[in-house]
């Protein structure tokens, strides 16, 4: 029987890699819990408030996006819109070409991965260097991030040391501190020689036009200090009403992601730098990208747009811990990815329609989500969607027969009594192919069908 892709990936995964991801994820989950328990009496009510804030924001996106545009423009930023990933790529390269920019530095942005921005810029003859340590390593390895916050959780220091040696950053040295220092020194030159800096944004505040970036390394600060042009790529769903909502969201984001009260640098960008300043971009562009988000807004899974990209759901997910990020074959892995990635695929939904099935529906993801996204419900909706679209699903027993059986009590009772379906349904129709995966690693209890019913019946007769 064909395997589910996530299951076969997990089965073939290197044990040490899986163990490292598991341990790192479990540590992240502990840190999150510890920081919330230490600082709040009722963290759950705060999560629900944050969820209500985000739900309100996306359900009033028409108002807030327009307001954000007006505020940003008033602050001196140029606002652009991109419908598709290609539009966004072209919008970026158009701005850069117009400014004669050849070298850019990038800070971490999941949305830029979504649109394969670096590949596109390379075709335009523009050098784009990832400056976040993890993302830089991903870039030089031609790899993909396996976590939305901790991109190289699947790599060890020896892998990184070899990559650095290959890139000419020095002889082989796998000491984490040395690796980090080398990246620091190398990147300095890149920042200072860059024409433009590209960032994402964690939030866009509609009434003040502020972009909020939540970081730790200082690379995004450098991207916004050294080059003369700033381009921010933002999903349309990132907009929130005002600074007061930030109180709740910022207090939850760091704690949920890494157990930090606040990340080292919380950056509030309110426009380009003043012209007379020695550093900071004189030109600022914000590109709002749709790329299927308005479709998702129209769907019955719109709650997924609340996501603030903390990664807590990945850390706690038992399937993520077993399979690791690359098993999800998309930019967003884990529980968030299992909903978002098939939806972002648009008309290619069927290519990722197996992801919502890679879940035991345990609900741990919803429990840790700082914006209370009902992920299991969304996974179920997507399973229904896949079924309606008649998409094949390896290992999933067809349920039409079950539907008939379980709504026909007389047949059901006979089936119970006579030891199962074998007396009624030909063996080849029996879901035996579905039993063998069970029986490979587990025994089944003995059949007791009908026993309780007859006990209950004779009891009632007394």
């Amino acid at each position, binding site marked *: 029987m064909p395997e*589910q892709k996530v299951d076969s990936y997990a089965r073939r995964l290197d044990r040490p890699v899986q163990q490292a991801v598991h341990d790192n994820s479990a540590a992240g989950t502990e840190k999150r819990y510890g920081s919330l328990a230490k600082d709040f009496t009722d963290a759950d009510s705060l999560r629900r408030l944050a969820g209500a804030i985000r739900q309100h924001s996306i359900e009033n996106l028409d108002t807030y996006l327009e307001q954000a545009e007006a505020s940003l423009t008033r602050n001196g930023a140029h606002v652009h819109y991109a419908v598709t990933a290609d539009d966004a790529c072209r919008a970026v390269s158009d701005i850069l070409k117009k400014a004669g920019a050849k070298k850019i530095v990038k800070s971490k942005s999941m949305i830029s991965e979504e649109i394969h921005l670096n590949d596109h810029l390379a075709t335009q003859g523009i050098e784009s260097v990832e400056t976040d340590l993890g993302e830089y390593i991903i870039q030089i390895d031609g790899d993909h991030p396996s976590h939305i916050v901790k991109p190289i959780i699947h790599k060890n220091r020896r892998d990184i040391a070899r990559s650095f040696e290959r890139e000419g950053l020095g002889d082989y040295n796998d000491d984490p501190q040395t690796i980090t220092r080398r990246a620091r020194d190398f990147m300095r030159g890149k920042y200072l020689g860059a024409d433009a800096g590209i960032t994402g944004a964690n939030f866009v505040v509609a009434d003040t036009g502020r972009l909020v970036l939540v970081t730790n390394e200082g690379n995004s600060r450098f991207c916004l200090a050294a080059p003369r042009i700033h381009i921010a790529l933002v999903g349309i769903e990132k907009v929130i009403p005002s600074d007061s909502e930030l109180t709740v969201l910022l207090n939850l984001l760091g704690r949920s992601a890494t157990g930090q009260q606040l990340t080292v640098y919380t950056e509030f960008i309110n426009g380009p730098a003043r012209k007379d300043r020695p550093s900071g971009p004189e030109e600022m562009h914000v590109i709002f990208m749709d790329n299927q988000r308005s479709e998702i807004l129209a769907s019955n899974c719109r709650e997924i747009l609340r996501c603030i990209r903390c990664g807590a759901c990945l850390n706690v997910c038992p399937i993520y811990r077993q399979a690791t990020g690359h098993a999800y074959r998309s930019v967003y892995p884990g529980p968030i990815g299992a909903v978002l990635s098939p939806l972002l695929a648009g008309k290619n939904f069927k290519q990722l329609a197996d992801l919502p099935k890679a879940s*035991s529906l345990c*609900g741990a993801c919803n429990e840790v989500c700082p914006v209370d996204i009902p992920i299991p419900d969304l996974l*179920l909706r997507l399973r*229904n969607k896949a079924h309606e679209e008649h998409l094949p699903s390896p290992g*999933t027993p067809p*349920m039409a027969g079950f539907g008939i059986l379980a709504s026909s009590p007389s047949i059901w009772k006979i089936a119970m009594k006579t030891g199962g379906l074998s007396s009624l349904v030909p063996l080849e129709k029996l879901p035996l192919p579905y039993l063998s995966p069970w029986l490979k690693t*587990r025994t089944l209890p003995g059949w007791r069908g009908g026993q309780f019913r007859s006990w209950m019946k004779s009891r009632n007769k007394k």
Partner: protein
Amino acid sequence: MTPTISKPNGRKIQLMATCLCDAFFDNVAKATVEVLEHAGCEIEFPENQTCCGQPAFNCGDWTASRQVMRHTANVFKGDKPVIVPSGSCAAMLFHGAPLEFEKESDLGTINDLAGRTWEIADYLVNGLGIQKWPGRFQARIAFHRACHTRGTPSGAAAMQLLESIEGIEVIPFGEAEQCCGFGGTFSVSFPHVSSSMGCLKLEHITAVNPDFVVSGDMSCMMHLGGLAERGGKPIKTLHFVQILQAALQNHA
């Protein structure tokens, strides 16, 4: 989740035995009956009951699932509380069913059923107000709180009853909040991940060497018990109602 306080909590109840107990765990269903009768309940067992439809629901075939749920709603019609010895089936009734019926014209019928469905521990402790369970049962137990009871009072209610029994010691174990890996058809469509999750949980549980592994869901117990047996290190699994029943048997 449906708040406990507004659910009818009378003692004339309907029992939903669950398809799993129907097929494999008659002893759990029998213990459920004895426990409820001890609590003063008058039990109606609608004979035409089959299943809550969750297997089809989880597979995305909501048409088949609704077909089953319509039958179930009809079988359990009335206004009595419906008691279920399974957090998973109870959650299907008060959360899953309203979800799959959200666009259906008979959503009202489903909501009615949802509004009077209780998982059994929740019913005993929060419905009937039983704080302490009589009798005694000498055992060190590991309690596995099934995932479908997340966000409900059921886990705490079961713990309260178990810890109140003389002789019972509930032993904590590592990563207790992590799923056992059953997940319904997930266990056969993702067999490697499902078994790996189960083995990881068994490692944590066996490290504390309990006499019994206890849960409010036989699905989890079937999965962990089956894994342990195939792995050559069998464990003893029980539904917590079986402990309540055993404690009563040891009651003077």
